[in-house]
């Protein structure tokens, strides 16, 4: 069901103001942590809550924090990943624009938990307004003594800064983000070493998504049990879903984990646009495999979506109506991934370019016999063989489409016209 905890004050235009935020109980969690808790206790609390990373991979947040070596003499860094660029995803943007202090507070708590005195929020370059809101929030938090030296008289110091990206999807990948933050070219790094051991400036670093960090103050205020009481066995709490596509009411909706997909699409989203039948659903951002109409009752949680053959990802649900040609969809998607491939490793760099050329010619009715087999093989040569997940992200929707809608591709090749829009003739 809809569960507005992150979104509790999302419609209050004054929530961006620090005084309003405080009057709504803001910065209480930070005060509690700094005055009465040890870093290890904070990590335990977040572990107990079952909070999982909201950026896409769903890695348990508390566990990630506990990987920071306790005895390293190097400085540690907390980095908030606000490079939200997965097509279909627009949840972090709303949080930054409308509840920036929730993120600042969450970052401060996380920084304390890992023993960091410098936190960065890396914001997608196109997000000019969200970046401004974050900068304002950080400045007013400094003004109130909630950042800077000796916060709440606890002796704990923390500096926080906004860094905006240059506009590359790859910089949402955590190691590429760290390179970009260092002033290097945004290209992913080979792992190991993982960021927890050698991250920003080769120092121990935690990179968390905006939504993950924004959830932290709620867990501290209300307790891990309260958070863990929501959701399913392995997917706790609530999550924001960005609904888009051929539905009547697209938008961001916060749901308890495990809520059926049909509730989001039909009840909150108002169902399909008039004259459209449901054809396919992308459940977790453009890189996740398609679900079919008969899977519409799948609960929205990590394990159920995985069992259905896809991934919950960032929670970007893209609904595709029956008048849509899947070849066209894939052509659009591979264009995006080809454009965003950073160029570091061979399979992704060369493979996405070649896939685009092949899919594009099929889309335009110039496909040749054997093209689909070639695409299958190229996808196999990319999947699991790249440095970072961008390669996988590029081929998963293609592999899924070729499995579920292969006839549409074959029709384009065989008949030089579209199966879906049969009235349309290629020149």
């Amino acid at each position, binding site marked *: 069901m809809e569960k507005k905890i992150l979104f509790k004050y999302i419609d209050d235009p004054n929530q961006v103001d620090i005084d309003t935020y405080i009057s709504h109980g803001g910065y209480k969690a930070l005060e509690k942590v700094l005055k009465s808790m040890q870093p290890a206790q904070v990590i335990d609390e977040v572990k107990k809550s079952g909070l999982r990373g909201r950026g896409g991979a769903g890695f348990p947040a508390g566990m990630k924090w506990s990987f920071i070596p306790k005895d390293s003499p190097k400085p540690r860094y907390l980095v908030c990943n606000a490079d939200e660029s997965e097509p279909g995803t627009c949840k972090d943007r709303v949080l930054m624009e409308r509840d920036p202090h929730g993120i600042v507070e969450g970052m401060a708590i996380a920084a304390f938990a890992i023993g960091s005195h410098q936190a960065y929020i890396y914001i997608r370059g196109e997000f000019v307004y969200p970046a401004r809101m974050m900068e304002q929030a950080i400045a007013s938090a400094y003004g109130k003594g909630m950042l800077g030296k000796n916060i709440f008289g606890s002796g704990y110091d923390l500096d926080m800064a906004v860094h905006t990206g240059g506009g590359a999807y790859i910089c949402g990948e955590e190691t590429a983000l760290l390179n970009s933050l260092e002033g290097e070219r945004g290209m992913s790094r080979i792992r190991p070493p993982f960021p927890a051991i050698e991250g920003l400036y080769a120092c121990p670093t935690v990179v968390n998504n905006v939504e993950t960090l924004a959830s932290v103050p709620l867990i501290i205020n209300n307790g891990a049990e309260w958070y863990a009481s929501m959701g399913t066995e392995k997917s706790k709490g609530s999550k924001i879903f960005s609904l888009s596509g051929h539905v009547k009411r697209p938008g961001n909706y916060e749901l308890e984990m495990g809520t059926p997909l049909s509730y989001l699409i039909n009840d909150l989203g108002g169902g399909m646009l008039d004259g459209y039948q449901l054809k396919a659903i992308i459940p977790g951002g453009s890189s996740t495999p398609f679900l079919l109409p008969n899977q519409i009752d799948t609960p929205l949680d990590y394990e159920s979506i995985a069992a259905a053959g896809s991934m919950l990802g960032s929670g970007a649900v893209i609904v595709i109506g029956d008048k849509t040609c899947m070849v066209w969809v894939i052509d659009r998607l591979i264009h995006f991934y080809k454009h965003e491939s950073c160029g*570091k490793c061979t399979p992704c760099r060369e493979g996405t370019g070649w896939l685009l050329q092949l899919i594009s010619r099929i889309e335009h009715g110039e496909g040749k016999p054997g093209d689909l087999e070639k695409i299958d093989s190229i996808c196999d*040569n990319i999947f699991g*063989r790249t440095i970072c997940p961008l390669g996988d992200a590029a081929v998963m929707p293609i592999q899924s489409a070729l499995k579920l809608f292969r006839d549409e591709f074959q029709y384009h090749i065989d008949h030089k016209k579209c199966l879906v829009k049969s009235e349309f003739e290629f020149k």
Partner: protein
Amino acid sequence: MADGGNNITLTIDGREITVPKGTTVLEAAKKMGIEIPTFCWHPKLKPVGACRICYVEIEKMPKLQVSCATECMPGMVVHTDTEKVKQGRKAILEFILINHPLDCPTCDKGGECDLQDNTFAHGIDDSRFDFNKYRFIKDRKSTFDDVRLGPEIIRNQNRCILCYKCVRANKEIFGEYDLGVFQRGNLTEIDAAPGQQVDSLYSGNLPEICPVGALTNTDWRYKVRVWKAQQVKSICGYCADGCNLTLWKRRDKIFRSSSRRNDEIDEGWICDIGRYGYQIANAENRLTTPLIKKGNKQVTSTWDEAIGLIARKFKEIKDKKGGVCIGGMISPTLDLASLYAFSKYFRTVLHSNNVDFRNDYKMLAEKYGDTFGKMASLEFKIADIEKSDLILVIGSNLIKEHPIVNLRVRKTVTKFGASLYTLNPFATKSGDISTDEIIFNAGTLEALINGICVSLISQKLNASDVDVSNFGSMANPNTVSSASKITGISEERINALAMALGKAKNITLIVGEYIKASPLRELLSIALNNLTIIAGINKKGQIGFLYKSANSKGAEKLGVIPYPSPNLIGKMKEIWKYYPDSNGLAADRMIRAAKKEEMDAMFVIGANPIWAYPDGQFAKDGIEKLDFLVVADLFESETTEKADVVLPLSSWAEYAGDFINLEGRLQHFSAAIKPQNGSLPAFDIIGRITVEMDKPIFESVEQLNNEIKLLLAVLPEKAAQSLKLGEVKYSEEKISPDFSIPLFVTDDLHHYGHHTKEAKSLAAFGSEPYAEISPAMAEKLQLENTEMLRIESEVGKIILPVRISEILDNNVVVISRNFATTPVNILQMRKKRIDRVKLSKVED
């Protein structure tokens, strides 16, 4: 399984191997002789796992793994040759080749291309790619694919496989940021940073490590197919680092030189001077015949006539006035045989001890046994720099003097975390990695060193077994605060450096040219000796008073100086059955003697004192007064102009020989080509003269080499370093208010000595003289880049275009001396420790 935590045992292709922790699967496989293809892997660079050709299968891991970036783990079971691995490699090659132009017939890398080799070994002969290949064209008007990135580097992006080795090495190893990656995905390009050229001193390495023909040297392009060139083992003949080179030749012409990796010295990197410097051998304007001065003109002659004249004249002068009236200067870039033959000729035939290889040092000492000489003979190993946790560089523009030692220092700092302290009168390129870059007031180094010594003592960080109770009375200044006042370096920084020296476990001290070339070198050496004793550097680390030229150390070891060590003299006497009694004159004393008309003749080989001696007017006056001057050189020079006989000399690439590098390492080089243009190697010239004088000093080069072996076997005297503290009193220099700005004359970054301007590629980096000043100074003088600057000293005046330096930040002017048009040394005075000038703008 793990053994003691430091070794790891794993299985590769069914065989067990034990390797140190941290070894990658690729390295372990290489050790076992298992070949795994690579493109982006390089033994000296951090792995990036970009090309992904080095896939292996590791049990319990579902995906293919890149062996270059996977660390060996205990019990790992690796397969390098399964069907899955082969399929993975084929797929990578297919990807790499889809947009590769396959223009092998016109590509210079053909025959030594990793892409050719790996495709041959692991690829398929067909492609499933049926689109037009993408072509990078920089300039729409141009139909060519080649883009010039720097004076010597051409890029063809179509061929690039994006292994990023060039960009990585440039950053990681050379500390340069002039090359970058642009665009994204399969449009990614390697290019020069905006507004910059790829023209660092190490830029020539970039084409060498390029696995394909994407980066090529203009030097080598389109000249020879690599499989038709012969490779000759050589050693660089410029600086004293002693990099190992391969010279590539065909039909008695050299086409390129490349690194012949020696991990003890160069680790596979060479500087551009070593890379392009060979071009002097095939340069067009080499001297081709001996010249003899008739009247006021030098006219072409023959070897027989010239040798006959030299023999006759030298004999005449020796018989009439004695050998002491003949002086000999020889370049320390010549081989051991030539240096030795020169010394033997002077001592046993001319009965003169006037031989010297130090032709550009002011005011050399007149007797054996100075502290400077002792310090310079200490052992130093380039590879041992890596053991240090603190490196102290004093009075050296390291990248300029020792480009490859500089790389080892960089590596030790950036890779192993050592701290670097540099003490110089102006900023150098080492500044970016220095813990503290100390720029002291020119001419106050001994005060600074005293300050550091005093600070060590007062912080109780001095070596415990040294009696320092009297040091206060031996030193002036003897407090940190007075040293701070004199040198302009704050007390905190002096104390911090002393603290770091005291705490360091292993120190490398590198002392450079500014000390060795200074007339106060003895005082400075004593000061440095004090520092090494008080800080205990002699017991924890190494001291490098590094020699400058390819064979300076050899010249020193063979005693090509007026006053060799008694042991060496003893050995010479034993071999030669003779040794002259007369006192010898050092290079600058010879010039002084000539000026006073106490010297009649001089024999100069490979040196150019009129150009190099740091008092141009003095050198010219002296040499012009000589009755008879013989100069052997590759090219016409300022000194050959004055000669009565000019002899064409061979470069080191034209004969076989040996150099001793700054570490004391004897290295043999083979002859790449025959002596060019009728030139002769120096030992041959000397041999012919002695035959003509009826006093042959050797019958064969073997005989020379055997005698050299005997001399080199003479052990340096025990306890070479004096362990006694010496007196160091700083006395303030009188500075004329008119001429107050310190002048430093140096080699241009891409030049070395007076020959390299004849190497076309090096001239492409710079062929015009310039004066470097700081931005603040430029502003004060209202000068923009390339505007003309007048530089006046008490004795001379020159006008040069100005270059506003990116790194200089104090009131000095630095001038490169390598260019023919400007005799920079006319500004210098031999008795001044620091040459000082005044600067003014030249109005149009």
